[in-house]
């Protein structure tokens, strides 16, 4: 057992990590592909952060863009106005993301299923509207640019895309470790209990309110920090992007769901599918007609969900079971 993993799992993780570390050296370090890989890693990390609330607690948040956008604006505005390093800005971003998650979790905690999804969706939209209208703070719909600094790790700016790749990979690893640690802790068992039967969980001593708030806040903190990563990577963003329903909220939920909700590997698989597919659809169809790329991509997603509503992980498990059955015959 290594870090609580079986040796087979540990080997698998080591191989995947080795590939992830070598892969960027095989492609153009300033090219387009590595940017897609960066986004893939970032969105995998975001899907993983969402997975703490959506997967472990089974609260289908459609408002995670709120914490993400708050994070992106926090570190960027601190950098613009006070010259504060984005790393310190990221801590502030995490704090604001966590506070926002705490505030929104109080009224929405008792809501279940669709009601929770709608309430969080509305919260994300409120943040987008605020971002667009409070121009004196956010720059409004025009968006903000991250001021250029001398490229360095301290200022979270680099000439090449390669350093971003490794930072995104590190972020994904950290968020995944946090996810797994929560899943295996008392909190993880409590969240599982809440997910399956709230009343029974309470009766046998689970403080369901506190547990849900804890999950929401951790998720919000991580989303806020990842907002900083996004800002430093893209250099420019506007409220409609970072607070967007389709661009962030639904996308991160979808990544976790398509991959395998509530599992550590789910959001990673989800991002590996969703982000490149989106890009491919864009490349192949955006020249033909407006919206065609999105239509094709949407249709593709529908097919995936119809074939395996519980995501790639469940599909994989089913294949393994079938294979074992076949082998034992």
């Amino acid at each position, binding site marked *: 057992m290594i870090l609580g993993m079986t040796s087979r799992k540990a080997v698998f993780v080591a191989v995947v990590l080795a590939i992830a570390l070598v892969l960027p050296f095989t492609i153009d370090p300033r090219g387009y592909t590595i940017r897609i890989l960066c986004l893939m890693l970032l969105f995998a990390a975001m899907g993983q952060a969402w997975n703490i609330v959506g997967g472990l607690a089974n609260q289908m948040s459609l408002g995670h863009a709120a914490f993400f956008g708050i994070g992106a604006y926090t570190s960027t505005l601190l950098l613009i106005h006070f010259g504060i390093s984005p790393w310190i800005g990221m801590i502030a971003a995490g704090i604001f993301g966590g506070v926002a998650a705490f505030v929104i979790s109080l009224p929405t905690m008792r809501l279940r299923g669709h009601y929770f999804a709608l309430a969080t969706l509305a919260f994300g939209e409120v943040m987008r509207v605020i971002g667009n209208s409070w121009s004196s703070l956010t720059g409004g719909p025009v968006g903000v640019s991250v001021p250029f600094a001398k490229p360095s790790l301290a200022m979270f700016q680099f000439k090449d895309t390669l350093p971003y790749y490794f930072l995104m990979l590190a972020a994904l690893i950290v968020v995944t470790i946090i996810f797994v640690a929560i899943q295996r802790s008392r909190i993880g*068992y409590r969240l*599982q*209990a809440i997910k*399956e039967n709230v*009343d029974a969980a309470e*009766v046998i001593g689970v403080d369901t*309110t506190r547990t849900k708030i804890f999950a929401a806040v951790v998720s919000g903190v991580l989303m806020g920090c990842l907002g900083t990563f996004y800002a430093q990577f893209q250099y420019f963003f506007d409220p409609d992007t970072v607070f967007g329903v389709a661009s962030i909220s639904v996308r991160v939920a979808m990544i976790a769901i398509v991959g395998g909700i509530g599992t550590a590997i789910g959001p990673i698989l989800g991002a590996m599918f969703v982000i490149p597919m989106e890009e491919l659809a864009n490349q192949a169809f955006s020249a033909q007609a407006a919206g065609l790329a999105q239509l094709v991509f949407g249709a593709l997603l529908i097919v995936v969900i119809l074939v395996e509503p519980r995501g790639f992980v469940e599909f994989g498990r089913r294949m393994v079971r079938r294979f074992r059955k076949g082998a034992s015959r």
Partner: protein
Amino acid sequence: MTAPLLEISNISKRFGGLAALSNVSAEVHRGEIVGLIGPNGAGKTTLFSTLVGLHRPTSGAIRLNGRDLVGLKPHKIAAAGMVKTFQNIALFLDSTVLDNVLTGGLMRHSVEEARILARQCLERVGIDHIAGKLARDLSFPERARVEVARALCTEPEILLLDEAMAALNHVEMDEFLSLLRDLRDEGLTLVVVEHHMRAIMSLCERIVVLNFGQLIATGTPQEISRNPAVVQAYLGRSAETGAH
């Protein structure tokens, strides 16, 4: 006599216009096994749910070791030492039997400690051989036992069992009754809702009878079986329903 462990004073619970419980008062002493009986719809499950904090009583007081429990959330009441099982079985279906039971132990222990305790509870209830199964793959009698094991894993002072024996055959029931007696001998206090009169009569020192949300009798099994109001409640129900 010492002060009662559980003291229920004039508990009423209304759901809209329906009085599910009206002025119910009862006491349970440490180390007792008390039976709670009554026809269907008498308010037994409502009383249990109210005691553990799933419902807030419309009026009245509930004291455990002298501490008022009204208004506390169920997890606080569990921490105070009172836990119930669910009549309709409320397991965590996608979790293993061990994880179901273990979750009960997390209130007072780390995951590792709770796992050891959960194993002991499963052994106690006689289902350690199915620890690794998913709860959804269990038979009904097995599920009922997991309910009990999970409640035991919270290390309660007083355990409320809501028809935990409903699906057991004769042999299983005798085993279960002797388990409950053993638990009592180790210091656990039990309140048992059960339709099986034979089980109730042989198990309990004292029986409390509810009918239409009201307490109509309390006494030893012999007293209860001879009580005219109880006989009326069980046998004359169809005649009485017309009057209501």
